[in-house]
């Protein structure tokens, strides 16, 4: 594990610029260089895959990614982190500008100091290893914005790390797509922070698409002020080791969060989603659905946690985990959890693990469809629910065709 060695031998700072943030992270990581496997959120992580994630040379340079879909349209602003020029656009109805370093530090530090290093390991590592030019900080304001597309990518045989911080001002409505592209034999660490101010709305899509032996840890931290709406659609596939950590904090309650995510595993892959949703005020709303599909010898993990303290009266939260297990050698772990103290709340969660519905398959076959056609139809509807929740995926990238083509 090259990277851990670098950390323990204190060699990181020589190559990096050594910002305050990096110093905080280094101190914490030197105490606990690896995540604690006894902690719930790391217990299921495949140790050898995690070791491989950490076993590439650190890279700060930019390599142009192969974006798997055509042409940019006029209505999209595309940013590739590491390559982006200073951005400062001001139109009549909206404005996007770069965040200054101090603001970035404030936003991230707040999160890093609030919880222990086990909860934060992915972010600590990311901030230690991301140099200045791979940090993208944006402030967004206004309405009728063009679609914002932010790409992060890794280069083969290298460890790549990127940080994204977006502050969304009051009354702003914006659509953001994040595309994480994993190259052959590479690692990508991505930490994202979204701050939603009052009355703002973000439709956020995260598509993580790997190649052979790609590794990814993506930590996403969302802070919602009151009357904000956060919609997230996420899709993870083709990573040998893929991990999405979602932390949603409704700071004042009174906000809405809708999440639809899907992970597809095949071969020997392990893909996990960890979602913690904390309500720190009354009248919060959550509707979360996480789907997974596991083939071959793969392993799919979902762990959810809804935290409702006494202050969060009238919270209405629902979390569902739906899983399809399609092979005798694949494995699915799911753990949707509730921690509730407030008494006037409506919380429910559910989990199912099954295979494709036999009765439905039989019905379609009795109408003349082949088993393959019938399964495809079922999978199509299984995927479609999530894909249709991603902003503008249809025009940009025919994900459904791509998913159905894979086996």
């Amino acid at each position, binding site marked *: 594990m090259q990277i851990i060695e670098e950390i323990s031998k204190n060699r990181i700072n020589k190559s990096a610029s050594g910002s305050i943030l990096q110093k905080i992270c280094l101190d914490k990581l030197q105490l606990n260089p690896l995540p604690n496997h006894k902690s719930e959120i790391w217990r299921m992580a495949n140790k050898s895959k995690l070791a491989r994630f950490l076993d590439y040379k650190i890279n700060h340079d930019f390599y142009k990614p192969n974006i798997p879909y055509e042409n940019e349209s006029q209505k999209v602003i595309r940013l590739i982190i590491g390559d982006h020029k200073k951005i400062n656009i001001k139109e009549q109805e909206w404005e996007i500008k770069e965040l200054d370093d101090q603001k970035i530090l404030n936003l991230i530090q707040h999160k890093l100091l609030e919880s222990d290093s086990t909860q934060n390991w992915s972010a600590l590592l990311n901030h230690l290893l991301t140099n200045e030019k791979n940090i993208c900080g944006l402030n967004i304001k206004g309405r009728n914005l063009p679609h914002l597309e932010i790409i992060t990518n890794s280069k083969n045989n290298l460890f790549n790390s990127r940080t994204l911080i977006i502050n969304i001002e009051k009354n702003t409505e914006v659509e953001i797509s994040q595309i994480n592209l994993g190259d052959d034999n590479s690692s990508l660490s991505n930490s994202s922070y979204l701050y939603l101010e009052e009355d703002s709305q973000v439709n956020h899509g995260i598509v993580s698409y790997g190649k052979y032996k790609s590794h990814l840890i993506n930590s996403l931290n969302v802070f919602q002020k009151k009357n904000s709406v956060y919609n997230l659609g996420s899709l993870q596939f083709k990573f040998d080791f893929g991990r999405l950590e979602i932390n949603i904090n409704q700071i004042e309650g009174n906000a809405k969060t809708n999440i639809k995510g899907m992970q597809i595993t095949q071969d020997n892959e392990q893909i996990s989603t960890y979602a913690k949703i904390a309500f720190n005020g009354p009248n919060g709303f959550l509707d979360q659905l996480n789907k997974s599909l596991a083939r071959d010898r793969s392993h799919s993990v979902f762990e959810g946690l809804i935290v409702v303290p006494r202050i969060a009266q009238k919270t209405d939260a629902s979390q569902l985990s739906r899983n399809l297990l399609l092979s005798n050698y694949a494995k699915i*772990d799911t753990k949707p959890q509730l921690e509730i103290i407030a008494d006037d709340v409506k919380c429910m969660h559910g*989990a199912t693990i099954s295979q494709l519905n036999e009765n439905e398959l039989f019905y379609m076959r009795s109408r003349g469809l082949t088993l393959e056609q019938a399964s495809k139809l079922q999978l199509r509807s299984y995927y479609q629910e999530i894909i249709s929740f991603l902003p503008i995926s249809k025009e940009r990238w025919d994900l459904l065709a791509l998913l159905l083509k894979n086996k």
Partner: protein
Amino acid sequence: MVNDNLVDNIVSEPYKYGFVTEIESEKISKGINEDIIRLISSKKNEPEYLLNFRLNAFKKWQAMEEPDWADLGYEAIDYQDIIYYSAPKQQEKITSLDEVDPKLLETFDKLGIPLTEQKRLTNVAVDAVFDSVSIATTFKEQLAEHGVIFCSISEAIKDHSDLIEKYLGSVIPASDNYFAALNSAVFSDGSFVYIPKNVTCPMDLSSYFRINSGDSGQFERTLIIAEEASSVSYLEGCTAPMFDTNTLHAAVVELVALDDASIKYSTVQNWYAGNEQGVGGIFNFVTKRGKCLGKRSKISWSQVETGSAITWKYPSCILIGEESVGEFYSVALTNNLQQADTGTKMIHIGPKTKSTIVSKGISAGKSSNSYRGLVKIGSKAKGARNYSQCDSMLIGDKAAANTFPYIQSQQPNSEVEHEASTCRISEDQLFYLQSRGIEFEEAVSMMVSGFCRDVFNQLPMEFAAEADKLLSLKLEGSVG
């Protein structure tokens, strides 16, 4: 709002089993070490193999760490400050009930478990355990006519050593967990049941556990074996006096069901829970597990947990035999400062195994109530099915309800379904009942027992009524 001031006026119903029996006890000195274990074993005249079983367990226990993962907070237990053996002094060999100290019979009378022939329950055989020893077992002879063995585990160790040697520790090995290891080293008494092939046990069997002494722990051990095509329903009840110290109870229950056998194990646990300030009460750390070894065998756990300061308990089923069935029905009610962490593990190993989990948690006062469960479908469990339902009801805004279900599947041809929800008694429901003339407290207890209906339906008749009564008793005052 009605609910806000409900819990503030907690006037707890006095615990009615809190009395102490004045009886001379034989106690050994405090603490645990190899000599103590040898002493317990020699007091019970145990054969060599059992002493070895105990010593082996003790070694393992010493090497283990006390678990801290359960969602519980309590002061550290000093294991050297506990008396591991306490028995009411009486004649060495008791051959009939007439020789039992009348004070003990009186105690069980007061608890509603009369043992003497004139008064005893007619449809249930009882094994009464007082501190570390079994006092009496009723209907032994009648049961023996059917080939059913029902006696204290100490007797079984002497008289049925073949069965003990074969099955003791076969479901829960000494190394299973910290408290199981401790129990295996020092267990004092408990019940033993053997149902021979093709026998349906003619009456319900039950054990009644009574902790009397304040400074001794209770470590009973129960073993039930159901041979092919046999069936039995077993009930367990528990009470303890009120002490302001905490008493440790670390029991082990092992069940084995062979082909087509079925065991139904029901518990109403009402150990002393401590007072409203959380002083005193039993620490109830129990390991219960059943092995469905045989094809089409069935093990069903139902429990109503209302007592104890802390409960840590996961009655589980290992489903090995093809088409075997595991069930878990639970009501856990916590009030004041009680903490309960309970649930089950359903381990599906054999094909076409089925399990059902229904858990109802009610938290009132400042208590905390967690469901923690594991459903595991192994790679050979083709056609396995699980359905789980975990509902929580919160009364007042200072109680906590947590749900930690853990589901793992390695078999595509299987189905797992888990549902959980949280609710409270709504003001509208209360008003509706009140507007029909039903008193406030009765309305609350009607709704609580409605909430628990699915579980109560699983309990044997006498128990269901008792459970219902117990719940309304426990809730009295908490919502007034």
